[in-house]
């Protein structure tokens, strides 16, 4: 882990944009392994678990989680029980932003009826994406339960939504930008914060763990 900014003369890794790296590749891997175990523990086995990734990084994370779940519990089939859920058409901010391209929604062949659906996203922030995902799931079937896994919880919720499985709680300011980089898409695994005001006194990695659902100090946008 190295600070991307403020180190003149030190060339950054070409794929890591400027900002502070708060989680490196091994941290991401450990967090995903822990989340996978928690999912199995919570669902008492992985038999009825379906992973749904939210594009774009959530899909990649869900695929990685699926591999880990399969190695923990062979009852989970990463081909059969993995899907992706595009929430574009359920968003509440469609009129405030330039037109978004509609992504692919791919469900397991057996559907989600009666399953334990675990939504997988990279950064949990306002909660609005998850609200849209819950609406989308409601139109697709009636799962037995819906859980939420995210790699980073940066706080600043605008809706009463709480993650069940968190890789890392990351206190941020509203103005900061948190990005999850994944090898499949970006060439490297890292979680990067940028836009941090100099001397703001916000903690640099490692961040002290915060209990899931603990109120964040300030608000922020991904």
């Amino acid at each position: 882990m190295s600070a991307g900014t403020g180190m003149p003369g030190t060339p950054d890794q070409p794929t890591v944009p400027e900002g502070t790296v708060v989680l490196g590749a091994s941290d991401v891997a450990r967090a995903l392994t822990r989340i996978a175990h928690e999912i199995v523990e919570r669902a008492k086995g992985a038999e009825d678990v379906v992973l749904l990734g939210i594009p774009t990084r959530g899909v990649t994370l869900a695929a990685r989680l699926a591999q880990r779940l399969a190695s923990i519990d062979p009852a989970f089939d990463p081909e059969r029980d993995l899907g992706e859920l595009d929430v574009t058409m359920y968003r509440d901010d469609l009129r405030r932003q330039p037109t978004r391209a509609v992504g692919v929604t791919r469900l397991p062949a057996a559907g989600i009826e009666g399953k334990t659906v675990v939504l997988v996203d990279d950064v949990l922030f306002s909660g609005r994406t998850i609200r849209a995902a819950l609406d989308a799931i409601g139109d697709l079937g009636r799962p037995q339960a819906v859980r939420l896994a995210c790699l980073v919880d940066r706080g600043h919720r605008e809706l009463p939504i709480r993650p069940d499985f968190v890789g890392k709680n990351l206190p941020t300011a509203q103005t900061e930008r948190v990005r999850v980089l994944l090898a499949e898409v970006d060439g490297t695994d890292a979680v990067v914060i940028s836009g941090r005001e100099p001397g703001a006194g916000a903690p640099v990695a490692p961040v002290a763990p915060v209990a899931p659902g603990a109120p964040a100090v300030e608000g922020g946008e991904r």
Partner: protein
Amino acid sequence: MRHLLSTADLAKDEAIELLDTAAQMAATQSREIKKLPTLRGRTVVNLFFEDSTRTRISFETAAKRLSADVINFSAKGSSVSKGESLKDTALTLHAMGADAVVVRHWASGAPYQLAHAGWLDAAVLNAGDGTHMHPTQALLDAYTIRRHLGGHGGGLRRGGDDGVGADLAGLRVAIVGDVLHSRVARANVRLLRTLGAEVTLVAPPTLLPVGVEAWPCRTSYDLDATLADWQPDAVMMLRVQRERMSGGAGAFFPSPLEYTRYFGLDARRLAVLPAHSIVMHPGPMNRGLEISAEAADSDRAVIVEQVANGVAVRMAALYLLLSGSTEGTTL
């Protein structure tokens, strides 16, 4: 994208974005709950100055599947029959707060006028104007061709099973019949060309418009030679538009029987086509005139599928025009 008026204005990436969005919309239409909340609270007005069944129903279905409110307005039985002008009708719609106006008009250019005269600030979708353009029909035709043949002729086929992301490069499409009166043909020639396909128009000389040599396509008077020598991947039969032929069909060809002999698609001509080729028709069909019952009902015919794809394509057009902040560029 602010309006959808003509396929001539569509850039290749815009056209592919529309087709890709249509593919996602089509995927939602196989679900148990087909309705999406995307355009909740928006109002779509279907403004039809000319008779239409499938286009109006298709637009209405598309808007309703996206949760928009739909108001149907047809010239018959409205103030238009009392002599109200297009402008006053548009001002009325503006006062009612329409977000999108789907317009079909017998006059070529009426949708353009509606979009650019400043009477309305709604998005305008051309659902067919005179003998000018019918962009959503051309888009659904291109979507249908891509689903069946995308990547077949060496076009870029990157994505999933429905040819998502691909263009139509290298495909050959024959458009046969009444080109003169056909907005479908005009819209298709432009769009298919933009997407990289080659187009041949086949028609009797009387049914080809003056100036067709300037269009980006070839022309032929001989259907048999075109089918045998050129081996098109898709054959699109056009309806003989008798209602637009003053003095009856006799004004353009000697007899319906002769037209059928030279330009009708039947089982014999179907057998000449390559095995993968598809048969299309924008509907409504004149069975026995431009297309025989065997051809229309063969398993090569994708005519019913075209109608289903029409809903998905129109959902995509409505979504791309109505979602997003209103600072868009005019097409």
